[in-house]
Structure formats: C-alpha cells, structure tokens
C-alpha cells in the first residue's frame, strides 16, 4: 500500500504570505515566503515522514492551514537540526538540560539549552528521506542501545546515548538534577562514568524535599546557578554578568506572560479555537527554548497570541474539533495522547501540567537575579509535595473546565508512577471529575492498547 502524503494547499498561500516574519537570535529573519517554500518543497523532500498521513503516529490527513503560527511551529521543528548544525558552525555553545526546567541562565550565558527530546530531534533530523516507520525504528534503535550502555530503562535516555557516542556537538551536560524525575540523575551518573570524557558535566543541584520556604535552600540553589553560569562561561569563553541574567529573566518572563495569556484566552473560549495539537504547540512556545532559538519562539508566540485572541472574539472553531468535545487534562512527564484519534472519538486536550508548571511561573525582576531565579525554580508547582501539586493542578483543571483527567507515566518513570495515584485521589476528592491512570511503553508503540483505554475513558465521560 502506498504512503499517503499531506501537502499544504496553495489555496492558503496568499493568506499565509500576509503573516509575520520569524526573527532569530542572531538577528536574521525568515519571511513567510521562505517558510512556505520550505514547507512545500524542501521539507517534504528532507522529512517525508512528517508529511505522511498516519493516524497511529498522530499525523493528520488535514491540518489547520488557516492558522499561520501552526505552520511556523512546523517550520521551526523541521529546520531544528540544520539550525543547530549552523549554530555550532558559528561557535555557539550547546548544553544538555532536562525537561521541566526554565533556561534563563543558559540564555544569559549565550548558550543554547536543549532538553532530551530536542537532542533526539537534532540527531534524527540529520538524516533525510526517512518515512515514519524508518524514523520510529531509528529512535527505537537509539533507545535500545542507550538501555544497554547505561544499564537502565527509562525515558529520555536517548539524549545521553547520542552525547556519549559523540554523535552530536554538545559542549556540556548541565541539567538541574533531581528535578521532577529520577531518570536525569541516573543519566548524569551514567554520563559521568561513560567513555566520552570530552563533554563537560555540571550538576545544578536542586534541593530535594520541597525546600522552597527555607532561605538556606534558595541560597544554596542560587549558588549552584552562579556556578552553572561560570561553567557555561568556561565552555564559551565569555563573561556573563548579573545584568545579562536579569535581561534573560525579563525576556523569558515576557514569554511566560504571553504563554499564560494565550492559554487563558484559549480556555476562556466557549468553542475551542484550535485543536489539541495546535494548542499545545503554541502554548509550549512560552518555553522560549522549545525550538532552540529564544527570539524565534518569542516572535511566533506574539503572533499566535493575537491570532488566538481574534479567533476567540469571533467564535472560530479549531480545525477538526468536534461539537461539544469532552475536555481532557493530561498529567505526567513527557507524555501525551494521540490527539487526532482522541478528537475523532469526541475529545479535546485542554491542558497538560508538565511544561506548564515552569512556563506559568514568573521570576521576580527586582533584586538579586540568581536568588530570584532560585526561588522561582524551587517554587515550581510540579515539584511540590503531592497535596500542593494536586492543589495547583486542580486550579488549572478548573480554569480549563476539564471534564476528565488522565495521568500517564512512562514505564521506568518511577517518580511519576509513584505520585500518579495519590495526586488523582486528591483531584477526584476535590473536584469529583473522573480520572484515569495509564502506564505506557517507552517507545510509544502500543497504539491500540493505549487508544482503547483513552477511548473508553472518553466514552465514560
């Protein structure tokens, strides 16, 4: 059976060309014309898998082509690998971090911070011409190799594998350790004892056991952030000042404010103004590092905020959204459901707690920027005790008017597996809305088993 391919329709080109440019960190600009060309000519040749219609992998038969920022996030995703290669050619430093943390100090130190997922995207994007099956098999191979090299099975191990194998020009492994999941700590240890000693290692030691209210803990973490910046400077050869950090905090706060505004606009709408995919890709831009370029994310986010405001005002319904969909809130780290198949079953994803925790946490701009950043980081709602995390999650669930909550944890993600039940118990007790826990395979390949449970939950709602 031949592969069915998706192509952007020329009918939407003219409208798209009226949209904004994307401006990058180095001041360069990409016009909608250039983006259109990439999405319709270069992209499909290099990454045919992304244009393959495959509902099992979440690739839709049709997309919201009237939402220019959706096309732009697609463009940023497709060009990610080549942009990272170009950045390295220009001598830019790249650090490996972990999910769930903000990147203000890395931005201050002029270093690109990549989460595990992005490291994988960089590596896999270097090979062109793969269809979906080949791409998935390649990722699976990396993971299996990582399990053996690192002697543990967990999510996000692929990034360490690529760095250990010397596949990518990552300069430093410098995550906030012990934040949200144990996997990163295991990964750091495996990296410390791995064969590749070229890549520097620095642990930004995050105080455990909910210490946000204790001044010593905030000061301790602030000290770690100072040492982080010093380490990043040693790698890049530059000198980062407190003022640089303050500027970075202000820049990221702008992203966080815009992201929050966009999410709240979306939630305020009677009719969902976008589908689940588009909502997530736009709200995630508040993580300004999401596409390896802070300014690029910010410029698309600004445009997205305005478009969503307009859609909400005019009651526009998002592409492929069913009438009166059941609103689902997803909890858990590095997880999600198959949006298009779930939408076909009559649902829509209205929120996720994962990245949202730090995206919605502003950093104080007056005073010592290291201390302020440390304080904000220790206060991330996702990192708090079960009761406190649940309390914050309930607020988000109420704001998003969710009808049901699914907590998903990857096999091997022991921290999230352990907290899933008690968090849902609190949510159920306080809100009365239905909840469901789902454990998933690390490779995300058990489509039918997963979707069967999700669809049953949607039917129950």
């Amino acid at each position: 059976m031949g592969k069915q391919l998706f192509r952007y329709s020329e009918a939407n080109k003219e409208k798209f060309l009226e949209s904004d440019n994307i401006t990058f960190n180095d001041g360069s600009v990409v016009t909608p014309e250039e983006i259109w060309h990439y999405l319709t000519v270069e992209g499909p040749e290099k990454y045919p898998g992304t244009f393959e219609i495959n509902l099992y992998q979440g690739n839709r038969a049709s997309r919201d082509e009237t939402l220019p920022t959706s096309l732009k996030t697609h463009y940023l995703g497709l060009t990610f690998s080549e942009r990272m290669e170009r950045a390295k050619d220009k001598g830019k430093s790249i650090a490996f971090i972990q999910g769930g943390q903000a990147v203000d100090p890395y931005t201050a130190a002029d270093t690109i911070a990549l989460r595990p997922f992005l490291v994988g995207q960089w590596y896999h994007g270097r090979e062109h011409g793969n269809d979906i099956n080949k791409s998935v098999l390649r990722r699976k191979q990396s993971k299996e190799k990582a399990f053996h090299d690192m002697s543990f099975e967990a999510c996000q191990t692929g990034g360490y594998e690529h760095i250990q194998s010397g596949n990518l020009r990552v300069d430093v492994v410098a995550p906030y350790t012990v934040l949200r999941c144990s996997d990163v700590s295991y990964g750091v240890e495996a990296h410390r004892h791995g064969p590749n000693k070229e890549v520097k290692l620095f642990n930004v030691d995050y105080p455990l056991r909910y210490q946000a209210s204790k001044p010593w803990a905030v000061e301790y973490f602030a000290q770690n952030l100072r040492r982080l910046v010093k380490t990043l400077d040693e790698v890049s050869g530059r000198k980062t000042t407190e003022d640089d950090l303050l500027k970075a905090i202000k820049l990221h706060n702008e992203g966080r404010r815009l992201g929050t505004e966009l999410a709240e606009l979306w939630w305020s709408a009677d009719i969902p103004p976008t589908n689940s995919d588009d909502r997530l890709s736009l709200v995630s831009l508040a993580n300004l590092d999401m596409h390896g370029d802070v300014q690029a994310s910010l410029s698309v986010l600004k445009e997205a905020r305005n478009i969503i405001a307009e859609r909400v005002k005019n009651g526009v319904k998002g592409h492929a959204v069913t009438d009166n969909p059941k609103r689902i809130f997803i909890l858990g780290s590095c997880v999600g459901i198959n949006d298009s198949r779930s939408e076909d079953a009559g649902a829509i994803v209205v929120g996720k707690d994962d990245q949202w925790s730090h995206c919605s946490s502003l950093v104080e701009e007056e005073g010592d920027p290291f201390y302020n950043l440390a304080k904000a980081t220790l206060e991330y709602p996702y990192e708090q005790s079960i009761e406190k995390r649940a309390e914050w999650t309930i607020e988000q669930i109420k704001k998003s008017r969710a009808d049901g909550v699914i907590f998903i944890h990857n096999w091997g993600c022991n921290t999230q597996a352990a907290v899933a039940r008690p968090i849902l118990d609190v949510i159920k007790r306080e809100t009365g809305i239905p909840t469901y826990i789902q454990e998933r395979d690390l490779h995300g390949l058990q489509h039918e088993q997963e979707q069967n449970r999700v669809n049953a939950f949607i039917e129950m709602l």
Partner: protein
Amino acid sequence: MSLSRNFFAGVDVGSLAAKAVILEDGKIYATGLVPSGVNSVESGLTALNLALGSAGLKKEDLKYIVGTGYGRVSAPYANKAVTEITCHAKGANYLHPTVRTIIDMGGQDCKAIRIDQDGAVVDFAMNDKCAAGTGRFLEVMAGVFNVKLDDLGAIALSATDTVPMSSTCTVFAESETISLVARGEKPENILNGIHHSIANRIAGLFSRVGIESDVFFSGGVAKNSGMKTAIEQALKVTIVKPEIDPQLIGALGAAVIARNFAKKEGLWV
C-alpha cells in the same frame, strides 16, 4: 425479511474470537462465534454472517451495526465503533440490571468495570502492558500441560494445594511452570496456583475502582469454572450466573448500543 421489523447487530472482534449478536427489539434473536483470524474484517464478517444465517436474515435487514473489540478499528460493515469497556457494561446491564461490577477477561486483557443502574461506565481499570492474567496466558498454560483450554478450570478445581506462581509475565510463568513440574509438583496444584495468581491480579485492579454487588464475569475466560471460583475467593463475592455465553456479552452490549443509536437517528420503525 420484513423491513418493518427492527434488527440490530453488535460485532465484537477480539484477539482470540469474533462474536456477533443480533437483537430484535428487546430480545436476542441470533448469535455467532468464530475464532479470530489475522484478518479482523473477515473474522467480524464471518461471525456476523453466522448469526445472520442462523436467523435467516440478510445484512440489509439490520438497521444498525456497532463494532467493538480490537477489530472495531477496521470494521467497514459497522455504522459505529465503540470500545468493549462500554459494550460489556451495556451487555451486562441488559441481561442483569442489578449488576454494578463487571470483571471482563478476554484474550489479551482483563478489565475491572464499575457501572450505574443504566449500564453507564462509572470507573474502570485494565491490566497494563503485560498479557499475564488474560485468556492468552491460560492458553499458553494449557499448552504446557497439553490439556484442552476448556478443561483447565475443572483440573484446577480438583487441586489439593495451591502452588504460588508468578503473574508478572506469561513467558516467564511458562518456564516457571516447567521447572515446578520438574520439581514434582502436581499439575492440578500448579494450575490452581495459576488461577489464583490471575485472580489476585484482578483483585488488584478492583482496589482502584471498588466493588459493588451484583458482580458479573464476562469474556471468554468467564467460561472457566476454576477462574470463577478463584475470583470469588479473591474478591470475596458471589458472581451472578450468566444467562447466555459470557463470551458474547461485548457483542450483546454493542447490539444494545446499536439499538440506541438507531432510535436516536430515527431508524427505528
């Protein structure tokens, strides 16, 4: 057949068997049950045609068809697809309106389902990735002892002891069984242990969703008397005696849902 009569069908294509139930208004008119092949479209159609043939009906006589089970995603003959969790709930409620808790054990998964008085799902839990605690697990064990799957339960009930068994992995449990036989454990005691290990796993699912009487046992494994007894002991409940083959409950629920959709869409004469 007269078009003035209202026939609805449910087709449940599972991993081991394909089942079809035809309802006429308020009663079960015909059923069909065949082993599933690799082609789920064909399996579903074969079961449906078997039911149609036994009732002297044609597919055109059916007002509405609902597909369920893993084969529902490729069921071009169905008007709508619904998950088997919802279908088992409706099927059990149709037969026994007092049922509030359902244990469904099929070929590749087991489910703990709580329902309300209308047969709507209130909560549910399913086994995770592993096939342990499913019909396939028992099938593998029947193969190890070279006995018929249908005889497994009766053999387990003849046990004088219960040998503790792993319920984590079907493949590992098979090698554990072989080593237990080599150590001289009696087959019936090992099989009794297997049934109890599965029952305990089911009981674990209910710690999530809770139990309320009456309790119903559906799915192919429900025909296994040893499993029924082990579950009754593990959950400390008495299971309602089914009025029809418990393997047909999913298809029956799908037929009930088909009837409801037909009514909603004005297809009811």
